[in-house]
């Protein structure tokens, strides 16, 4: 991933990452359906969704803040484009962590910009579900204790010498898996997309705006899974990277299929309990590594 990109690759990889991310979301959805003994949509359904929405009637509600309503779609795609380039350049994990947090603010912006009560409640839940990011802080801290760096390139070099962090820092990997789970649709922590909120923060973003959001979701899924594999497995060739992402999606789909969506209170409580456990683990690692 950190190899120098050619001129065409800069754009081509971005577009292919988006499409593959959407395909992963389709596989995720299909697997959940099959586990629940439903036929489910075809695996390319999310790609079709993106294309379908781009041909749909598009509007800005009269109750919306026009600038925010349109701008937040551009920002959503922009931040994950930035995350993608941080990933391919082997940049800082802290920047990607910042973009994880920024995405919550963007979701909040989506909800508030429309003026719809469903959107607003979805936006508020996005802020509440930022609790799911806290285990990520502890995961990152543990990685820093092991590798003495937060640069993805340094983390990959560390793993070439000492082996994958998946085995040496397994609890941190579990915590980061939980963070990814909280960002996947139809999961136990997907409180921002609960059916009582219609489509949550994206209820009023329809047509081209929703197609833009689908592009963001594809890119986000790709980056989330690729970062996990980079941080806990190390540098992978493209076929292994894509295979690893599909395996992760299978694990996520099983987790989503067999667990009901939690209430916002339960979701935050579980995230905080995990954070507490991770803090204890981080302290133990710190004591062992730096007695």
């Amino acid at each position: 991933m950190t190899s120098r990109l050619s001129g065409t690759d800069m754009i081509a990889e971005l577009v292919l990452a988006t499409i593959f991310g959407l395909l992963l979301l389709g596989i995720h959805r299909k697997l959940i359906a099959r586990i629940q003994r439903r036929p489910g949509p075809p695996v390319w359904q999310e790609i079709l969704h993106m294309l379908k929405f781009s041909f749909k009637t598009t509007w800005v509600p009269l109750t919306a803040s026009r600038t925010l309503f349109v701008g937040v779609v551009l920002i959503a795609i922009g931040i994950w484009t930035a995350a993608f380039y941080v990933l391919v350049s082997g940049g800082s994990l802290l920047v990607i962590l910042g973009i994880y947090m920024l995405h919550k603010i963007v979701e909040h912006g989506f909800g508030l910009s429309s003026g719809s009560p469903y959107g607003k409640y979805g936006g508020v839940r996005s802020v509440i579900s930022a609790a799911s990011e806290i285990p990520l802080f502890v995961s990152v801290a543990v990685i820093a204790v092991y590798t003495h760096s937060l640069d993805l390139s340094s983390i990959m070099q560390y793993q070439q010498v000492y082996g994958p962090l998946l085995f040496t820092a397994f609890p941190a990997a579990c915590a980061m898996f939980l963070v990814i789970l909280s960002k996947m649709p139809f999961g136990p922590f997907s409180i921002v997309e609960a059916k009582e909120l219609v489509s949550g923060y994206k209820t009023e973003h329809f047509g081209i705006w929703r197609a833009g959001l689908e592009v963001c979701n594809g890119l986000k899924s790709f980056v989330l899974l690729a970062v996990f594999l980079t941080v806990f497995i190390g540098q992978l060739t493209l076929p292994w990277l894509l295979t690893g992402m599909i395996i992760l999606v299978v694990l996520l789909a099983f987790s989503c299929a067999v667990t009901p969506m939690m209430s916002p209170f339960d979701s935050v409580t579980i995230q905080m309990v995990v954070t507490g456990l991770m803090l204890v683990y981080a302290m133990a690692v710190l004591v062992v590594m730096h007695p």
Partner: protein
Amino acid sequence: MRMKKTMAARIFCLGAGVCMFVSALYLAGIIPLTLCAAVLVPAFPATVLALFFWWMAGQSGGDIPFIGY
């Protein structure tokens, strides 16, 4: 505010052109990856949305976007 098909096409062509241009500059080693990415981060989203506007917009007059309800 209304957006014509030709305007959407111009924005798309401009955005795609900028993306290709900075990519070429990076390939030639004239600009670093960070500068290339700094241009692509705002240009890519605008290009994507302009593409969507372009292919769904009608041939004449203003189009459906921004009609309100």
